[in-house]
C-alpha cells in the first residue's frame, strides 16, 4: 500500500466518512471507494452491501479476485442530560463500543468529575449537536426530562439520518412532547420513530438498570438497521 493511500484512508476514518479499500489480490493494485461517490459497474451492488454491513468480502472480477475491506465510522451515542442515568449509561456505552458524548448546558451537572472518562459538552444542544455532526452512525438518548434541553436535541436528531432516537419520560410526557414537535413541523411518521418511553421493557428500576434497558435498545437499533457491523 502507498503511504498516500493510507493517509487518505485514515483521513476519511478520522472525518467519519465511510470508505472501502479494494485490493487486487493478484495485481496488488489498490483504490479507495468513497460512499459519497456514485458507483456503477459490475461490483456496484457488492460495494453497496459493504457500506451497509461494514463487512469485508472477496469478489471475483474479470481482472482477477479482489478483496474489499469496509471502514465505517465507529458508532456514537449522544446523551442529553448529565444526569444520574447518564453516569451509568456513558461508561456502559463505551464498554459496548459506542462513543458516548454528554451534552448538558447546566455546568453544575456537566462536570468532568461526574463523567471522568467521557466527552462532556456544557452547551445547549442546538449549539453542540451541529458541531458534533449527527450522522447515521450516531444515536441520541434524550434524558433530561426538560423540554428546553431535550427538544432542540430531538429536533436536530429528527432532521438527520441517525440510527436511534430515544427520549425519557412517561407516555403522557411523551404525548406532550410529540405535540410540541408536531407544531415544529415534524411528521407523525417521523415522530413515531422516537423510542419512548425509552429503553427495552425489562422492568428497570434504578438508574443503572434503566441505562441497561436503554443500551440494549440502542444496540438493537444499531444492528437491526445495519448501520454498523
Amino acid at each position, binding site marked *: *500500500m502507498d*503511504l498516500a493511500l*493510507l493517509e487518505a484512508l*485514515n483521513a476519511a476514518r478520522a472525518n467519519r466518512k465511510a470508505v472501502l479499500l479494494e485490493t487486487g489480490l493478484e495485481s496488488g493494485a489498490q483504490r479507495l471507494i468513497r460512499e459519497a461517490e456514485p458507483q456503477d459497474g459490475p461490483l456496484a451492488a457488492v460495494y453497496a452491501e459493504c457500506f451497509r454491513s461494514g463487512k*469485508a468480502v*472477496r469478489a471475483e472480477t474479470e481482472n482477477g479476485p479482489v478483496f474489499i*475491506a469496509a471502514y465505517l465510522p465507529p458508532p456514537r451515542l449522544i446523551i442529553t442530560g448529565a444526569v444520574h442515568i447518564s453516569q451509568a449509561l456513558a461508561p456502559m456505552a463505551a464498554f459496548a*463500543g459506542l462513543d458516548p458524548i454528554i451534552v448538558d448546558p447546566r455546568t453544575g451537572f456537566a462536570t468532568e468529575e461526574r463523567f471522568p472518562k467521557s466527552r462532556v459538552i456544557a452547551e445547549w444542544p442546538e449549539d453542540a449537536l451541529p458541531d458534533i455532526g449527527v450522522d447515521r452512525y450516531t444515536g441520541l438518548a434524550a434524558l433530561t426530562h426538560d423540554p428546553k434541553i431535550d427538544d432542540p436535541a430531538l429536533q436536530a436528531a429528527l432532521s438527520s439520518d441517525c440510527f436511534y432516537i430515544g427520549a425519557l419520560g412517561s407516555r403522557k410526557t411523551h404525548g406532550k412532547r410529540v405535540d410540541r414537535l408536531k407544531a415544529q413541523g415534524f411528521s407523525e411518521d417521523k415522530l413515531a420513530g422516537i423510542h419512548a418511553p425509552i429503553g427495552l421493557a425489562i422492568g428497570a428500576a434504578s438508574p443503572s438498570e434503566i441505562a441497561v434497558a436503554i443500551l440494549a435498545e440502542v444496540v438493537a437499533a444499531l444492528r437491526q438497521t445495519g448501520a454498523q457491523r
Partner: protein
Amino acid sequence: MTELNDPLGVAETWRKAGRPVALATVVETWGSAPRPAGSHLVIDGEGNFEGSVSGGCVEGAVVGEAIEVLETGEPRMLEFGVADETAWEVGLSCGGTIRVYVEPLK
C-alpha cells in the same frame, strides 16, 4: 477506538517516523476464525506489531513472514488452518482457517 490501538493509525505513524512497515490483513476466513475478514496487524522491520489477525494464535508466524515481505518488497498471501502442518505448529487451535494478505507500506 483510540489511535494507540488503531493498527492503521499506528502504521501511518510508524512509516512517517521512517520505520519499514508491513500491513497484514485477514482476507478470508472459514469455520470458527477468531477475527473477521478486514482485521489488521501492522509489523515493523524489528518485529514490533500492533493489532491482530487471530486470537493471538498465528501472529508470531505472520510477524516472521512480514519481515521477509519487508526485505523482498513483494506482497504475499498466507494461509493458516487445521489442514495445514504450519497451522498446527503455530496453533490455530480454534479449528478455523484464515488467509492473510501481507503487503509492504511504501
